[in-house]
């Protein structure tokens, strides 16, 4: 919070101010930014470069009034590169049409932020953390930048600071009628100005916002509409060669290459390289390496994951749960839960199942690496540039400042691109061949060597008293995925008199990973569907039972009520239409939806209409927030209705989009409306909020339509037929 106290402005920078292009650089970063001390300079060549160029780290203002703002976040479609710049521009009173945004270097000490603005700095873009974490800090940067320009002008005009006003990139003095643009004011800019504190209370109040909540376009949309946006796959370096890797079909198995000579003799192949987890082919063109990849013959060693088959794992979870409901890793426990179950009038139990799910970002993993003797460069679409940089330095035995990570757009991330396994592979190949290498994962590679949302089972139990009230709530997760499994299992907005919620992790040796909204997808599906089962058992309406449980949580209640009102909850539906609702919190945001479904002749679910409401605190970028909700709901629908990775004897059984199907446009809802709740609270995460609400809503709509329960995602026609008997 008090980061800005550490700001030092070195007087030696003044000489620069006579030059054409000037900085406003009083960033709220807790570093000693003085040239004299130069700790930072010694540590980091990128920072050194910044200092030498006299670029400040966040805002670069030019005499022609253009403003370039540094973007520290990974832009993967979530829109935060625009939202963060808006935060600075708002406090600075900038003319938004003059703002350009560039990616900052991958230097977390300079450009990172702690979670919710606290703790150690990171540039990782995960968990819908970006806007809520940078919200105060970047508005402080804006306020400081504005202050410095104003103070210089007050001195130059010999007028009291308080009499100056700013608007749309101009400073004016109403009493004298004087006015000057920010760019022009650089002529007398004084960067020796002492900066006051700008705490949260001294920043603009939401009612005075002119840009936050008002701008509805994203800066990256035009170049994503004409093919000019650059992803790492588009990078082209002189004398670059191409690499592909055939990786272990079973996690952990080791390769023995059977036809090295043959491969080396194939057209365009430069080198065949052995890796621990696979065999790499390096060639002159993508076509060369893809052609050769088809001929590769490898014998694989056995591995522990050979034993694992996903279908059997589900049966073992049920068996384990039937034997004992001991919770190894308790997530949340409150009240006399065992007593509640002992004394219950009735106990309701149900098991919910979730398959492995694949990220399926449209741009398969890839990277362009160029390793030289004492330096390395990489062009990378990454959610974690700082971590990638450290890992590369570590891998090569270099210092961090000898590694440069060039950040490109990401053709989707969804959690997969916060690991940097693909970056290290590219670096290793470039190191071995001593040339720039573009490493390409094929779609098959990307799917079969994926890191999946965990396989899991949720055993749900409710103790119900003679009044029909839930007095005990138990939620035990069995699955493979460690800490990923428990996210979203807490019931922070439903006040049960007692509860026990926890995880029993069983390691199957499969790679698992955060997948948009992490465990919230599976867990909120189980919670919301089971709550409807409880409502049915106790003769309550699904909306009524939730509102009762939420009675002490007015914000949550308001979101659910809004969705219910939009979806005309309680109104009769036409024949053949089922309706369901669900609520979920994610990344501190609150969301709810009502959906209408019908069944096709082939027993497939069609989600016809969705009405969703979101409380995300102050909404920095409303249209993008709606887009994120739409996208989250549709990606959620895809996972709920269609997606599953199945594993047999350790091998992934799917290979491409023909057998790992995603939702297509003809399956999108006819209506998808999103309402944003007005709020002046600190922003919360919005990028994942659409995902967790849709599973429960669809399952509940199915029960409303058919009287039967779906407890195993995805809800394929086979499972629907089975449920219908």
């Amino acid at each position, binding site marked *: 919070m008090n980061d800005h106290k550490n700001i030092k402005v070195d007087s030696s920078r003044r000489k620069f101010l006579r030059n054409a292009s000037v900085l406003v650089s009083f960033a709220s970063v807790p570093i000693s930014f003085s040239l004299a001390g130069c700790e930072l300079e010694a540590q980091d060549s990128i920072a050194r470069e910044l200092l030498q160029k006299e670029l400040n780290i966040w805002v670069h203002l030019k005499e022609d009034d253009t403003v370039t703002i540094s973007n520290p976040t990974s832009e*993967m*479609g*979530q*829109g935060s590169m625009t939202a963060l710049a808006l935060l600075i521009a708002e406090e600075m009173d900038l003319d938004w049409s003059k703002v350009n945004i560039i990616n900052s270097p991958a230097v977390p000490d300079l450009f990172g932020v702690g979670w919710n603005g606290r703790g150690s700095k990171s540039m990782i873009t995960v968990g819908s953390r970006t806007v809520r974490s940078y919200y105060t800090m970047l508005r402080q940067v804006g306020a400081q930048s504005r202050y410095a320009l104003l103070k210089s002008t007050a001195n130059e005009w010999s007028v009291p600071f308080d009499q100056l006003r700013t608007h749309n990139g101009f400073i004016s003095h109403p009493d004298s009628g004087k006015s000057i643009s920010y760019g022009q004011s650089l002529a007398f800019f004084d960067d020796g100005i002492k900066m006051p504190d700008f705490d949260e209370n001294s920043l603009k109040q939401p009612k005075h916002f002119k840009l936050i909540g008002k701008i*509805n*376009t*994203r800066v*990256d*949309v*035009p*170049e*994503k*509409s*004409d*093919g*000019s*946006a*650059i*992803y790492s*796959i*588009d990078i*082209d370096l002189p004398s670059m060669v191409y690499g592909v890797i055939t990786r272990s079909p079973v996690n952990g198995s080791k390769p023995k290459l059977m036809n090295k000579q043959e491969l080396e003799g194939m057209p365009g192949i430069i080198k065949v390289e052995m890796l621990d987890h696979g065999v790499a082919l390096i060639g002159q*063109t*993508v*076509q060369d390496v*893809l052609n050769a990849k088809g001929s590769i013959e490898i014998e694989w060693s056995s591995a522990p994951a050979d034993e694992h088959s996903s279908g059997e794992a589900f049966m073992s979870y049920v068996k384990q749960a039937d034997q004992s409901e001991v919770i190894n890793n308790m997530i949340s426990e409150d009240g006399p839960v065992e007593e509640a179950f002992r004394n219950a009038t009735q106990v309701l139990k149900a098991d919910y199942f979730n398959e492995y799910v694949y990220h*399926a*970002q*449209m*741009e*398969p993993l890839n990277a362009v690496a160029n390793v030289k003797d004492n330096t390395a460069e990489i062009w990378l679409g990454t959610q974690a540039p700082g971590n990638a940089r450290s890992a590369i330095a570590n891998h090569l035995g270099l210092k961090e400042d000898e590694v440069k990570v060039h950040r490109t*757009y990401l*053709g*989707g*991330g969804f959690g997969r691109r916060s690991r940097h396994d693909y970056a290290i592979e590219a670096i290793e190949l470039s190191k071995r061949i001593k040339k720039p290498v573009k490493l*390409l994962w*094929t*779609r*098959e590679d990307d799917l079969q060597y994926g890191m999946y949302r965990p396989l899991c089972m949720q055993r749900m139990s409710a103790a119900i008293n003679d009044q029909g009230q839930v007095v005990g709530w138990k939620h035990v997760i069995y699955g493979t995925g460690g800490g990923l499994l428990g996210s979203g299992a807490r019931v922070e907005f439903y006040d049960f008199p007692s509860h026990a919620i926890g995880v029993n992790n069983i390691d199957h040796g499969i790679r698992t990973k955060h997948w948009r909204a992490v465990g919230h997808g599976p867990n909120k599906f189980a919670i919301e569907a089971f709550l409807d089962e409880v409502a049915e058992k106790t003769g309550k309406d699904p909306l009524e039972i939730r509102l009762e449980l939420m009675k002490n949580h007015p914000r949550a209640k308001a979101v659910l009520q809004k969705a219910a009102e939009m979806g005309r909850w309680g109104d009769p539906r036409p024949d053949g239409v089922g309706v369901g609702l669900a609520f979920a919190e994610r990344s501190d945001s609150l969301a709810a939806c009502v959906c209408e479904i019908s069944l096709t002749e082939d027993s497939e679910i069609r989600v016809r209409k969705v009405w969703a409401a979101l409380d995300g605190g102050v909404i920095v970028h409303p249209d993008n927030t709606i*887009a*994120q909700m*739409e*996208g*989250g*709901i*549709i*990606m959620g629908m*895809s996972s709920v209705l269609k997606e599953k990775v199945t594993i047999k004897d350790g091998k992934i059984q799917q290979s*491409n*989009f*023909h057998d790992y199907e*995603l*939702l*297509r*446009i*003809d399956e*999108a*809802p*006819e209506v*998808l409306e999103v309402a944003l709740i007005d709020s002046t609270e600190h922003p919360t995460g919005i990028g994942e909020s659409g995902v967790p609400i849709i599973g429960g809503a669809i399952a509940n709509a199915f029960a409303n339509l058919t009287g039967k329960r779906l407890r195993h995602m995805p809800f394929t026609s086979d499972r629907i037929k089975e449920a219908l008997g």
Partner: protein
Amino acid sequence: MEKMILKVNGKSHEVEAAPSDTLLWVIREKLKLTGTKYSCGKAICGSCTVHLDGTPVRSCVAPVASATNKEITTIEGLSESGLHPVQKAWIEEQVAQCGYCQSGQIMQAVALLNKNSNPSREEIVGYMKGNLCRCGAYMRIIKAIEKASELG
């Protein structure tokens, strides 16, 4: 390897390639037109869509030899300014999220509107269902096509 002439976005280019090489990689690696994307390599997702004589084709499975003597149009050749009516509509509706599939979506949508200037919703989703969007921008793709149809 053979020398062949490809006519791309109104210009002729001589390229050296095996006839069976896929059009996608020739466009991307030899002609350096990177707006056309690789995603599935099996004509299942539509990210690589280009036009051959105005017909949308999945360039990831089209042999380059099939494209000689044809007018090849990529996203870069849709308009000089990047403001073809469909691109304008795409910007107005703020369709793109990660953006990776959007070149293919736009090429497919242009082909639709060239054939049918006033498609119904059913015709839109029927024609566009070969193009995947993982970010889930489908609602806006439909709106943008409807808008482009109005813009004419």
